[in-house]
């Protein structure tokens, strides 16, 4: 326990240098601007910035990316409140009560509440990160190929299930497509080239960064430019800094939303938007005044913003301990860590425990920078909101091209970015979620390698995949998730539970 605290202190001290603090300041401000500008998402910002941090030291590069990630998730709430457009998908729930508050002349209060609840949400997530990650990391050391196979599959399935908007089928399809992308190139067990069709550049597989820049950069540009409606910015005439009473009268909501956000963050590939909506729904159910939700409820706004920010910190739990990205942006962070020679996974706590606590310190620094800038730079951010997207998107596209080209300096990656941009846009328009696709690309190799390695160990006998205790549990969970996504089955299960609940009530 004390070792952890000492290492966290060392992590914080590590970044108390002018260069690190300078990186925190500019990266947080950049993240805030990215979050505020509609059409630019946290994942896109992190993916584009990987190029700029390429030549930095590993700790500084990850610090910068983390500040951008956290800043963007928080910054999006400004747009949700003032424009009624979520700055990033994570802030969609914040529009429901944030904008009505702004229309009531309480835009400043709404922004203040969003800022402080974001900070508290991140702190709840950091608390659980510091507690759970070391334990999970230790448990994961006992995992073998069989468990990692199921974990990778679980990540793709649960992400598909929870993010598929009109049907989980689309989430599953997106996940399978991502896994298929990962199958392209040289496989790791026998060094055989798959699906390259004689194209030499495909031999090394599809790089995650250009694919992400396409799926989250170009696809966002196309989606953003498709819309013609111009939103009106709500005026800010009241104070921004909330009182302690205004915040802490909803302490139960803050803790509940923080825990829900943490839980969602731990689940691989289920991002901030799910955390935000889940917290909002739970707060509405538990509220004494649910009728105010959607009409400018301060509690609703606090729940939404606490929930999505808790996800950011909690997403680092599976990311660092299992190398399973907790969100789409975390997938880019994994790629960035690998570029800089940091290998996330169960061995991280053994090989490089200081780095883990440095990540916790990075989150703390980014959180306090968000709080400081969020409460003090309101007028500047309103000016950012007024930037016409026609002038912005052209520059962003040039950055997408440079961002995908710069790491390996080959045009092939730019073509990959274009391909994923176009396919990503079409999939988005048809309501296919992007998170399972990304997760599939990241986890494809893990899934493939562990499946065949497991079979090799048993000379082709698949029994251990189903009989080892942890494997069996994860396998059963996956089967349950898939069965529950079939409407007839889930309805039948609900009826059974209602009936048994009813009969128990009658007996009691």
């Amino acid at each position, binding site marked *: 326990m004390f070792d952890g605290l000492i290492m966290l202190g060392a992590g914080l001290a590590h970044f108390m240098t002018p260069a690190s603090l300078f990186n925190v300041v500019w990266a947080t401000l950049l993240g805030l601007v990215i979050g505020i500008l509609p059409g630019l998402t946290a994942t896109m910002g992190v993916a584009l910035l990987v190029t700029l941090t*390429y030549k930095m030291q590993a700790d500084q590069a990850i610090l910068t990316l983390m500040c951008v990630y956290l800043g963007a998730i928080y910054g999006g709430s400004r747009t949700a409140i003032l424009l009624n457009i979520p700055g990033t998908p994570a802030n969609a729930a914040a529009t429901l009560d944030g904008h009505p508050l702004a229309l009531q002349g309480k835009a400043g209060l709404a922004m203040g509440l969003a800022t402080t609840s974001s900070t508290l949400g991140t702190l709840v997530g950091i608390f659980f990160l510091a507690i759970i990650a070391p334990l999970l990391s230790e448990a994961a050391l006992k995992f073998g190929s069989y468990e990692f196979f199921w974990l990778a599959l679980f990540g793709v399935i649960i992400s598909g299930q929870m993010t598929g908007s009109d049907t989980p089928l689309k989430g599953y399809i997106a996940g399978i497509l991502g896994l*298929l992308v990962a199958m392209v190139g040289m496989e790791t067990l*026998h060094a*055989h080239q*798959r699906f390259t069709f004689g194209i030499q550049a495909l031999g090394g597989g599809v790089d995650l960064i250009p694919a992400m820049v396409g799926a989250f950069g170009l696809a966002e540009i196309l989606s953003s430019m498709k819309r013609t409606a111009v939103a009106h910015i709500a005026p800010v005439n009241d104070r921004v800094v909330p009182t302690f009473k205004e915040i802490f009268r909803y302490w139960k909501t803050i803790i509940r939303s923080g825990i829900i956000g943490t839980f969602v963050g731990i689940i691989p590939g289920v991002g901030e938007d799910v955390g935000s909506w889940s917290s909002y729904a739970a707060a509405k159910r538990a509220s004494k005044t649910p009728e105010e939700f959607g009409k400018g409820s301060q509690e609703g706004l606090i729940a939404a913003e606490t929930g999505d920010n808790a996800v950011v910190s909690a997403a680092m739990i599976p990311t660092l301990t299992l190398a399973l990205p907790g969100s789409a942006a975390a997938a880019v962070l994994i790629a960035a860590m690998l570029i800089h020679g940091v290998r996330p996974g169960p061995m991280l706590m053994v090989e490089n425990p200081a780095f883990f606590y440095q990540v916790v310190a990075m989150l703390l620094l980014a959180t306090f920078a968000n709080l400081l800038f969020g409460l003090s730079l309101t007028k500047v951010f309103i000016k950012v909101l007024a930037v016409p997207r*026609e*002038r912005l998107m*052209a520059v962003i596209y040039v950055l997408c091209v440079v961002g995908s080209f710069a790491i390996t300096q080959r045009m092939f990656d730019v073509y990959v970015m274009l391909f994923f941009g176009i396919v990503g846009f079409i999939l988005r328009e048809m309501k296919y979620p992007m998170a399972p696709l990304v997760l599939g690309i990241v986890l494809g190799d893990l899934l493939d390698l562990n499946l*065949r390695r497991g079979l090799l160990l048993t000379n082709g006998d698949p029994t251990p995949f189903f009989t080892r205790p942890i494997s069996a549990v994860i396998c059963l969970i996956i089967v349950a998730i898939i069965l529950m996504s079939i409407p007839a089955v889930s309805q039948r299960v609900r009826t059974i539970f209602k009936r048994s609940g009813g009969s128990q009530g009658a007996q009691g």
Partner: protein
Amino acid sequence: MSSIDPAISPPDAPERHTVSARIRADLITAIVLVLFGLAIVYFSWTMDRLEARRINPATIPGLLPLILGIALTACGGLLAWRSWRLDLPGSGAALIRALVSWPALRVIAVLGLALVFTLVLMGRMPFALAAGIFIFTFIMLFETVLADEPKSLVATLLWAFGIAAVGGGGIWYVFERIFLVRLP
């Protein structure tokens, strides 16, 4: 073909058109996915099994792609069945309307400009110039011809020129001079 699912039943007419267009688009995509899945199954089945290297038959490179191909075909089939069940008369017309619309034209314009910049301009002239031309054309097009409320031509021209110069030159300077990236 039955009536629309109440769970996704749209509240108003424009939204209803969007949903019905999406259902038809889902049907078409599902058929494409089934064909793609079958192609993956074929290529995985015929993939080299490395028998010459005497590898364990359970570890052939095509194993997971084969499973994924079957899974994609199954999911595509289920999506096709779902979409066919939800499909409404007039869905095809709604889809065509969505594809031939003002927003679609804007998307095609962005894509066209992006492709010309990436595939034609880049590499044929200095990067800063290519980026500048792209940014200038993009802003001019979307603030005048493709804008709902076109802005003053002179102001747009000045802004477009300024942003093109600063954006194109700035990105070139930052990456090529500061980060030492050799741009195409």
